[in-house]
């Protein structure tokens, strides 16, 4: 079971209907292929005209929101790719705040609150509570999570 989640009991919808999705990403930059799957799946949803109400980064995936990661030129830079996708489609990129703080990902407010040396949350990402995952799961038609 590779961390897949779905809603089988929603109203029957034909293939041309546009659905609202929430994407949960639990795998980080070190699980390259899974992380890429999440990105590509989201990209494809949007390309096919579905809406993505929120992408929620949890567990290892919070590391994708660091602006201080240096990726070799011949490897995929997940941070940049999510940012580009978010900008193109006005996506909401929510990062679990507890996980972010634990992994050294902070925005200017948290930086000030905890008197840290620097803030490094990448542009386009925002720190949110786990409640945003629960809220999105109530509102969306489909919730799909990536990460083993």
């Amino acid at each position, binding site marked *: 079971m*590779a961390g897949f989640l779905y809603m*089988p009991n929603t109203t029957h919808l034909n293939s041309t209907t546009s659905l609202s999705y929430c994407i949960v990403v639990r795998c980080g930059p070190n699980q390259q292929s899974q992380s890429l799957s999440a990105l590509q799946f989201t990209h494809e949803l949007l390309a096919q005209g579905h809406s993505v109400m929120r992408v929620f980064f949890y567990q290892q995936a919070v590391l994708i929101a660091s602006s201080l990661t240096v990726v070799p030129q011949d490897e995929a830079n997940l941070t940049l790719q999510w940012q580009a996708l978010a900008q193109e489609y006005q996506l909401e990129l929510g990062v679990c705040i507890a996980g972010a703080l634990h992994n050294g990902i902070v925005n200017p407010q948290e930086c000030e609150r905890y008197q840290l040396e620097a803030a490094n949350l990448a542009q386009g990402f925002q720190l949110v509570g786990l409640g945003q995952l629960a809220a999105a*799961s109530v509102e969306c038609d489909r919730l799909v999570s990536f990460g083993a």
Partner: protein
Amino acid sequence: MSCLISLSQSPYGSRSAKESLDAALVMAAFEQNPGLLFIDDGVLQLLPKGQQPSPHKHIGKIISALEMYDIEELWVETESLQELGLQVEQLSQPVKLICRQQLSELWSKYDQHLVF
């Protein structure tokens, strides 16, 4: 709206068990009525005795708080229990047993399924 959360990680090997239980508690707080399925090493989260995990978070204490959050549907996969050489009487909470073949039936009872 109901949500099944599968917990397959051992309690202290990584932060995953803690984080998945956090998600369960928040789902419950949002009245999502989550059920929990303990599977594979996740069954170990239900072992009550001799947990002295300091300095880690005490998983057993989070488990014992589930009832307070009205999380009452606790499922344990029979095969996982057997593979770990455990008996259902050894677990800290009253649980319902379900065998591997019936899992898809369980999944279909819930609107959503979140796997950790």
